[in-house]
């Protein structure tokens, strides 16, 4: 990298010298000469050759820089659909590299090849319908292939989540995420209403709904089971956010007033990734990718992917919201108080 910087500086210095050299010519050039239009002179040749140099240097530079960067890319996707979109991405990149190379090479090569030559006359060649037909059809066919593969992947990824998916809610706010789980008993998310939000009840859980009694929230970690579909129900409290889980190739906006969702199957636990990458500190991360204000760059949440057993253990270890904040029992309608009470006090819970 330092090498690159040094190279760049060198190039800059050389070019600066060239400029200086030329400037002397420039000053001479300021003397009015009325011989325009001029014959293109030596400069025309120099520029033509520069294009030829550019083809060579450019492609070496691109290939080298590309190879140099691959080690910084994300590791292989940890989700099933993620590996599919990755394959598709690299397939498309590979395919599109061909026209990238061909078109740029042709452009620069022709620039060099057909540079001005005294006495030469350009061909008068205004059209060729067959050629035009070919280069309309070929891109059209390539596009068709890309559309079809992409469309198939897209409709699978965005299809309805399987019945057995683990449903977890994730809510964005300035500047953080809050996860909510359906709870140990019914594993069902209770209703919510944004008007019920306050400093403790950060996602506005509605305690008139009995399925919310065992719900619990977590502001720092999202745990999910491995090899099982997970359905994220996504919402936002204040402004737009976007749930981005880079290693899972998951992204979906969080929109106030319009719940969104995304389901996927993670198939590598955090532990497995640690072993695979040889990095004992590896963590899956969740980021925000919709600008949401000054804390946008730091809306981090850690994602923990674990096997079913430890996942269940973790769920069991979490406290229902009602237990943490028993005062919310007041919000529960009279006929459900008894049912809710079991989540509140120590004694009631153990008596159960």
């Amino acid at each position, binding site marked *: 990298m330092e090498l690159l910087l040094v190279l760049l500086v060198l190039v800059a210095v050389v070019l600066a010298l060239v*400029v200086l050299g*030329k400037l002397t*010519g*420039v000053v001479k*050039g300021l003397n009015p*000469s009325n011989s325009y*239009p001029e014959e*293109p002179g030596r*400069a*025309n040749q120099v*520029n033509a050759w520069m294009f030829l140099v550019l083809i060579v240097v450019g492609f070496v530079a691109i290939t080298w820089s*590309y190879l140099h*960067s691959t080690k*910084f890319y994300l590791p292989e996707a940890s989700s099933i659909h993620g590996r*599919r979109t990755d394959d598709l*991405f690299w397939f*498309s990149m590979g395919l*599109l590299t061909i026209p990238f190379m061909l078109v740029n090479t042709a*452009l620069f090569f*022709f620039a060099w090849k*057909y540079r001005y030559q005294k006495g030469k*006359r*350009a061909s*008068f*060649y205004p059209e*060729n319908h067959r050629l*035009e037909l070919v280069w*309309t059809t070929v*891109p*059209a066919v390539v596009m068709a292939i890309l*559309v079809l593969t*992409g*469309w198939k992947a*897209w409709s699978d990824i*965005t299809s309805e989540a399987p019945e057995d998916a683990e449903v977890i809610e994730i809510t964005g706010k300035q500047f953080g995420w809050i996860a909510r789980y359906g709870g140990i008993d019914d594993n069902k998310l209770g209703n919510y209403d944004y*008007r019920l939000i306050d400093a403790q009840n950060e996602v506005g859980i509605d305690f008139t709904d009995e399925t919310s009694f065992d719900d619990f929230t977590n502001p720092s970690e999202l745990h999910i089971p491995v090899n099982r579909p997970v359905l994220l129900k996504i919402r936002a409290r*204040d*402004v*737009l956010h976007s749930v*981005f889980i*880079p*290693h899972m*190739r998951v*992204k*979906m906006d969080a929109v*106030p*007033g*319009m719940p*969104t*969702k995304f389901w996927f199957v993670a198939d590598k636990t955090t532990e497995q990734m640690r072993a695979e990458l040889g990095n004992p500190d590896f963590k899956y991360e969740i980021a925000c*990718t*919709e*600008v*949401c*204000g*000054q804390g*946008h*760059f*730091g809306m*981090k949440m850690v994602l923990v992917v674990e096997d079913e057993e430890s996942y269940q253990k973790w769920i069991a270890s979490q406290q229902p919201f009602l237990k943490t904040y028993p005062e919310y029992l007041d919000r529960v309608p009279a006929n459900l108080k008894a049912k809710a009470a079991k989540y509140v006090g120590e004694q009631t819970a153990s008596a159960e």
Partner: protein
Amino acid sequence: MSVVEVVEHGHTEEHEHHELSFWRKYIFSEDHKTIAKQFLITGILWAVLGITLSVLFRIQLGFPEADLSWLRPVLGGWITDTGKIQPEFFLALVTMHGTIMVFFVLTAGLSGTFSNFLIPLQIGARDMASGFMNMLSYWFFFVAGLIMFVSMFLQTGPAAGGWVIYPPLSALQQASPGSGLGMTLWLVSIALFIVSQLLGGVNYITTIINLRTRGMTFSRLPLSIWSFLITAILGLISFPVLLSAALLLIFDRSFGTSFFLSEIYIGGEALSNVGGSPILFQHLFWFLGHPEVYIVILPALGITSEVIATNSRKPIFGYRAMIASMLGIAFLSFIVWAHHMFVTGMNPFLGSIFMFLTLIIAVPSAVKAFNYISTMWRGNLHFTPAMLFSIGMVSLFVSGGLTGIILGNSALDIQLHDTYFVVAHFHLVMGAAAAFGLFSGVYHWFPKMYGKMMNQTLGQIHFWLTFVGLYLIFVPMHYVGIAGFPRRYYQFTSYDFTSVFSDMNTFITVAAIFTFAAQFIFLFNFFTSIFKGRKAPMNPWRSTTLEWTTDNPGHGNWVGEIPAVYRWPYDYSKPGAKEDFIPQTVPHSVTPESNFPSDNALIAEEKQIESQNYNDQFKTGH
């Protein structure tokens, strides 16, 4: 033909000569050429400011440790005590950079300059259909700019929600300091800007349709004029939609409506707004936003067509295909907007449709690229700075367009959306390509604008430094995007997955500063040439179009008769012809040596063309 004599003579006869005051001549001018220069100079000033802002935030990204305390005298509290850029200020910089570059530089600076300058000159008109509206168009733009500029000095800062100003962030003062007065001024400024665009656009369209000179049929229009026409139509259809989005946003902000707001809890209170949809705003925004990117690129493509044909000494390849593909692009650009919204939660089926339509648009774009390349094939290339920038433009357009094909694939966009991959895509295909169109146009038409030549060598050096510099900035940016780096991040140290690539960000910043520095070569060349450049001959590039048939024109463009047109604009290197170009004003009857059999039929029309004169605005005072 002793044009000069006839000209001097006819001039005094036809309209009496009265000296305009300084104000009417240079400031509140109704002459399209002066207005074009006003757009150009204003655009250049905005570009300098806009790019400076980007250098500032690139320093934050590339050298997060840098001590910027020395900027405190200028930026005050925006720089923290430890010499760092404030996160809020960072977002303001990103937002202002985007707004300025897209609207003020690449829309007004590019299309405003060249539509104004070239339309009357290339179609053979005395001026725009309405000089007054044209003048208003500039001054609305000027005031819009002034307001945006003022917003940068507010205590709470300018708008800071990205150039796309998505609500609720932009709608709620509580959400961000920039969403206060800064956002109000942004909206007012853009509303005025839209008025400016509409005044200009109506004028361009009317002028092209009604004021073409004798013989200038649609099939004899230079491609530049076609591109300006299509651009103006796009603007006329899409800008009002942005205006309505801005108005509804103003209502939401100030009058308690809920077009874009629903179920929001912010700043410790639940707002009463329900039933609105932030996604609706995005639909409205991108209904303009996507055509807008073509509003930016089409004029550049038009300019490039002229420059490449002239300097290859060859007819543009596939004139009709070029027009057809521009029309195709224009039409399709209205039905692809939701590719910016694949992951907003909109119906996935809709996503599939938009993916399909988006990928179709790549086809006419590809056709254009191929046509440019075949125009150069077996040409006799003159590497004027304009030609170099046009070649560069084609390269950047292709390289950036190809990544669009990846982004247009909704399945792939899941990962790439709002990462640096998108930033790299649109900077190549829109930012850099359109800027190259602008440079190309300036180098090519400077002699006609100022009657002076720009320095060719400096222009060539400027090209190479800029061209290489841009690729050095944006190729690595793709890698950063593939690695998953989100855009509009103040720093990359909060996450493990973004802490790996810091060298690359440093490299990009160095390349950006390098490229920025290279632009001073242009500024130097441009401003010194206005005063000290060599005097330009009438037709320095030996070009065929009408603007080169008048010498350093005053108001009214041609002294004496306006020219008549007998042929298409691309008779370069026609077999048999004495010179390697035949201007549009030369009748076929005087070029028997180079006429094709089909041309001879056109000789019969010449009499009829000559007898027409109804389009001279100065004669009939229509």
